[in-house]
């Protein structure tokens, strides 16, 4: 399986990463090298093998839905690149 420059552009759009035209060729070549490497997986016989998600096969632990500890909003918003009146600023999304 290989990908084309056009498909790399689409993957970039899906990932919200713009790939500059001058970089498209190198990204395509490099990603095709990686896809060639991972195509080795096809050699493995995996019929009747269940996929693994946790290395120790543990299920996600659930806890009661109560707040245990919270960081004050002001503290959290100190990390925000653009904050005004306790609100995160974003470009206009609705006309």
């Amino acid at each position, binding site marked *: 399986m290989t990908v084309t420059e056009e498909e790399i552009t689409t993957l*970039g759009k899906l990932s919200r990463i713009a790939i500059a035209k001058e970089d498209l060729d190198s990204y395509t070549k*490099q990603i095709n090298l*990686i896809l060639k490497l*991972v195509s080795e997986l096809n050699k*493995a016989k995996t019929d009747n093998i269940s*996929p693994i998600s946790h290395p120790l096969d543990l299920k996600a632990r659930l806890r009661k839905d109560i707040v245990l500890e919270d960081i004050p909003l002001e503290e959290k918003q100190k*990390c925000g690149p653009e904050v005004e009146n306790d609100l995160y600023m974003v*470009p206009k999304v609705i006309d």
Partner: protein
Amino acid sequence: MDDSFPKEILKISDGLKKRKFSSVEITKEYLRRIKAYDREINSFITICEETAIESALEADKRIAKGAAGTLAGIPYANKDLFCTKDILTTCGSRMLSNFFPPYDAEIISRAKENSLVMLGKTNMDEFAMGSSNETSYFGAVKNPWDLRKVPGGSSGGSAAAVIANLTPLATGTDTGGSIRQPSAFCGVSGLKPTYGRISRYGMVAFASSLDQAGIIGHSAADLAFFLNIIAGFDPKDSTCIEKPTEDYSRNLNFPLQGIKFGLPKEFFKTELNSGLQQIFANAISLVEKLGGKIVDINLPHSSLSIPAYYVIAPAECSSNLARYDGIRFGHRAPNTSNIEELYEKTRSEGFGAEVKRRVLIGTYALSSGYYDEYYTKAQKVRRLIKNDFSEAYKSVDFILSPTTPTTAFPLNEKTDDPTLMYLQDIFTIPASLAGLPAISIPAGLDKGLPVGLQIIGDYFQEARMLGVANKIQQTTDWHKLTPKSNSEKKL
């Protein structure tokens, strides 16, 4: 290093308790060394001079009251992907070059509770993606053994800082070899515990089913004492294992008599140069001399580890890194007119090339129509790899291998074809996929550069594994070799 200060954790601890020196004095000495030598090595992104002295003062008070544990007052460094409250946490990326977290990672909290003194935050490959520390936004780290060589990655800053004697201990993280490979390249001891043994809370996520916090230090004994503090269940990490910890230093005099060590036949299909082969053969002879029994084993699916890893890790990375949107924290591109443009510009500016490649690969592997072909297939192969280890541990106690297929390579050597760099982790990725604990310890020098010996244990066998490593270190001085003793370069 001023000779009045020892390097070993127990000796530093003893010196502090007996008031031979104070935590403030030893902390100032390490800070002096960082300022003097790190300009060349670049192993630190942030030096925490002020807070380190404050913590050292507090530690001295606690020691004076007789209320301090073994590690109180001992300086250490943190890989720059552990969140540190109000202290810059960059993950080696432009994306987080302005990020001052509002909370501490769990292991930072535990170190604080035990009065360790944080010297600073160490350099790393961007978002822990790399094996050379060349992908850091803050510049490559240089290997103290040879400044023209890489220190390995992604915890390259931590490993380089330890061997350059800029800190006696450092934290790291290991997703596919990111503690063990730089430890091998820099000639230090590096432990990746069982997946889930240490909390991931406050650790910037890369590939959540593989990421594991660990430790880098001068010896297995030093690692054992630090592990005692940071291991253990944390309800804030849903993948952390709810299992009691143990005293990881209790097996440090572990006898190797009758212990079986497996050598995976498949690992030795990889071509090693004659120097590395000889060093590994010497290590095996030593284990035999100490009473260990060497057994050939098979890990038939291990050759598929790298392909499986390079589907699973990028897939999880593309999902984890979706959070970087320029709104709540991190870098934000200026002058954008709509939300789509804000996301796209922010991420294009904030991420480096290797991160972008992995996000693209992960997006591809998880996209409709390819999910089963890539991601499900890789997770099935991962089970086959785990099953291989389970079978092997029916007949052996530990598995031995070289940590890496080469010694440290030159800077800028492997950056054109990313897959060449990926092969660096050929011996470390299998244990990562299986979630097993593993350690790399120094095994000697090849042409003046360190070689690592990897010991892989069964689940939760950290104490015995550290015991094996310590036994080797009691018998040899490989872990005491430093760039200074190798050359006349003053470090």
